């Protein structure tokens, strides 16, 4: 019997079905033909590999995907009808315009708007599934049953599906738009490399920007449990924020403002999102620890990983010593000021005595004030030691330094030193002390950072602090300071603040201030005037304002 004959026989009959003669013929051939023997041995080994049982959540996942599909198709049909209607309407309007306004002004000169240099990403519409290649399953009309699906149908969303959406800030420079495109591509690529997640590249939001809270709608239409927003802004930067569509909770997962950061930014965002969705903290912690110790990485990448480790450590003070040592080394020796800054930021709240001398050195000698401010805050854990106390007291009396340009209201050297000196006791008292300290400038007083790193909410600081913040916002000439104050008020429900916030929401020329005012009204939804103003703000020309108003209407306080 030849090769093909043996192959045919073994494929068409099971071992039990072979006749004695056939079995003998097969055995003889295999004994004499090494090629066939090796072929069948390899195949048998392959066939014997174990197959795990399907995971218990697979059924839920399939059910949610099907429900999402049914609803998306139903909407797509309606969308098509509406689209045809709109196109017809637009064509009519265009004809009328041509007839009535032949001398329309050309577009103004200047920097191109975002829309003209949109990132090369797909539109935010549900992707059509590929048609099966086999002719026996050709494309077909949709099944009649799905036409009964209503928009109001609710279904569980797939917790393992994530939609990524780029959100440009209208009117930003060309460079910022391109930055967002790079940021988007990097993050999508890193997320797709993370197993266990279905990542849908939702594209840019601009096509649906006029709808309220479109990111949630898009995610819901696609059956996705989470949505990741990448927000671009000037100066070129990229924020990442992940939200749970069902619970409407959200979390900031990354911020980067320099192109050389994209890679570590992409990695960190992907890791945080994976953790947010898959909850595999132990694996991530191990990966981050390895990244901190990896000398092949840039200083900034290593302290980024340290920062994430620090965020996830159950008790920050117990961060492991190897990681702390890396942070300290980078904080003192790195040529990259951003890495030094982040190193001290990450080590705030950690109380390893090995840190004291390097921190004192940095506070005294670092060339960048923002790095020195973080060193001061990281020294809060040691403020009782005489040397530390002396150094902080001296820094607390410094002439105010220029606040960093990146965002309003980061701590300065002196405000950080004062906070650190107060920080040994109750953190609420320490932060309240900063807000009420009249010898500080308004941006310094509006920082609300705890010595250990995270921000305190204004409602935790009591009524006097809230009134102070309101007064600082009311008297501020600087739009960023005013916007910041209004945003902080988003946790406070004192009705005395409402008139000023309503006025700014309706009339202030700066979109940051209008957005801040919208956030500041979050706790006043019981007031019909507030609700009406927020609903009007959803037609604001600024996307930022529309989004802030949308969150406020949902009762979601600013991050």
């Amino acid at each position, binding site marked *: 019997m030849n090769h093909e004959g043996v192959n045919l026989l073994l494929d068409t009959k099971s071992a039990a079905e072979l006749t004695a003669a056939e079995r003998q013929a097969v055995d003889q051939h295999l004994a004499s033909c090494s090629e066939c023997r090796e072929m069948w041995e390899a195949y048998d080994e392959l066939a014997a590999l*174990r197959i795990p049982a399907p995971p218990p959540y697979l059924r839920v996942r399939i059910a949610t995907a099907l429900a999402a599909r049914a609803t998306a198709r139903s909407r797509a049909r309606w969308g098509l009808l509406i689209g045809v209607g709109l196109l017809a309407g637009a064509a009519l309007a265009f004809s009328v315009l041509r007839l009535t306004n032949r001398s329309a002004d050309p577009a103004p000169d200047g920097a191109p708007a975002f829309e003209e240099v949109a990132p090369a990403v797909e539109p935010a519409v549900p992707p059509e599934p590929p048609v099966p290649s086999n002719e026996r399953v050709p494309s077909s009309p949709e099944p009649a049953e799905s036409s009964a699906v209503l928009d109001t149908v609710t279904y569980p969303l797939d917790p393992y599906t994530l939609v990524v959406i780029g959100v440009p800030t209208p009117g930003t420079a060309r460079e910022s738009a391109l930055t967002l495109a790079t940021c988007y591509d990097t993050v999508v690529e890193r997320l797709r490399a993370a197993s266990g997640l279905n990542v849908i590249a939702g594209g840019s939001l601009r096509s649906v920007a006029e709808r309220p809270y479109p990111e949630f709608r898009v995610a819901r239409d696609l059956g996705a449990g989470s949505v990741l927003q990448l927000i671009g802004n000037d100066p070129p930067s990229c924020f990442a924020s992940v939200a749970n569509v069902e619970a409407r909770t959200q979390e900031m997962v990354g911020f980067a403002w320099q192109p050389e950061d994209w890679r570590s930014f992409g990695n960190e965002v992907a890791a945080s999102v994976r953790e947010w969705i898959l909850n595999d903290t132990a694996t991530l912690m191990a990966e981050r620890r390895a990244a901190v110790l990896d000398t092949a990485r840039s200083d900034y990448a290593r302290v980024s990983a340290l920062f994430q480790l620090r965020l996830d450590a159950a008790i920050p003070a117990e961060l492991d010593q190897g990681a702390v040592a890396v942070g300290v080394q980078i904080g003192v020796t790195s040529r990259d000021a951003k890495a030094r800054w982040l190193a001290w930021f990450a080590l705030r709240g950690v109380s390893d005595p090995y840190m004291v001398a390097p921190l004192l050195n940095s506070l005294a000698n670092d060339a960048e004030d923002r790095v020195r401010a973080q060193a001061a805050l990281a020294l809060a854990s040691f403020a009782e030691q005489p040397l530390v106390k002396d150094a902080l007291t001296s820094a607390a009396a410094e002439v105010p330094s220029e606040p960093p340009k990146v965002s309003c209201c980061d701590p300065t050297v002196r405000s950080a030193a004062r906070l650190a000196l107060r920080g040994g006791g109750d953190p609420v008292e320490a932060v309240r002390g900063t807000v009420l300290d009249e010898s500080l400038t308004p941006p310094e007083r509006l920082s609300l950072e705890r010595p250990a790193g995270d921000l305190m909410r204004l409602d935790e600081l009591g009524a006097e602090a809230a009134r102070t913040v309101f007064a600082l916002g009311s008297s501020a000439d600087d739009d960023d300071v005013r916007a910041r104050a209004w945003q902080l008020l988003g946790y406070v429900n004192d009705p005395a603040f409402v008139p000023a916030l309503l006025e700014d929401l309706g009339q202030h020329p700066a979109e940051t201030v209008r957005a801040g005012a919208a956030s500041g009204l979050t706790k006043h939804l019981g007031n019909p005037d507030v609700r009406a103003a927020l609903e009007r703000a959803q037609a604001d020309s600024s996307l930022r304002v529309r989004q802030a108003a949308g969150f406020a209407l949902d009762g979601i306080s600013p991050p």
Partner: protein
Amino acid sequence: MPDGVQRFKALIEPHLDALFRAAYRLARNRADAEDLVQETCVRAYDHIAELQESEPVKGWLLRVLHNAFVDGARRTKRSPITKRADVGDPDTSASPGPSPEESAYAAQREELLQRAWLKLERGHRALLALRAEGYTVDEISKITGLPLDALNARLYRARQNFARHLKEEQMSPAARKEVAR
């Protein structure tokens, strides 16, 4: 959940295990297998009108899965090498208690098989996976749409290629390094 989806779910539910097994054989990792099953179900839902009354649902679903797999280049980005923890199911693991050396050897061997497997073209992988899953050549012919003669010839070539790739893998530097350890 919409009624139509409920009905469809009831139709496919009894076959999800079979779909997952076939998908796992094709993808050789859990995440990709899950993706493939999901895509299969969504495609099948889109094309439910074409399911003939007399046609077995399972065979039809496997056909959709086969097409989805052969089409699917987008799943190739994931790491194909499965971690050991991903493979073993405590209830179904055959070995009652292998020694550490045996476990290590089995793990290395499985990696070799997987590397060879991934060198096969997708169409060949689909045929061997279905065959290894116990489907007869007649059934595979219906699933793939290949005439029996062509199918037999392709199965033969698929096995030949797999054995060749396995041999190459056994001689690869990575394999030699593993053995030397």
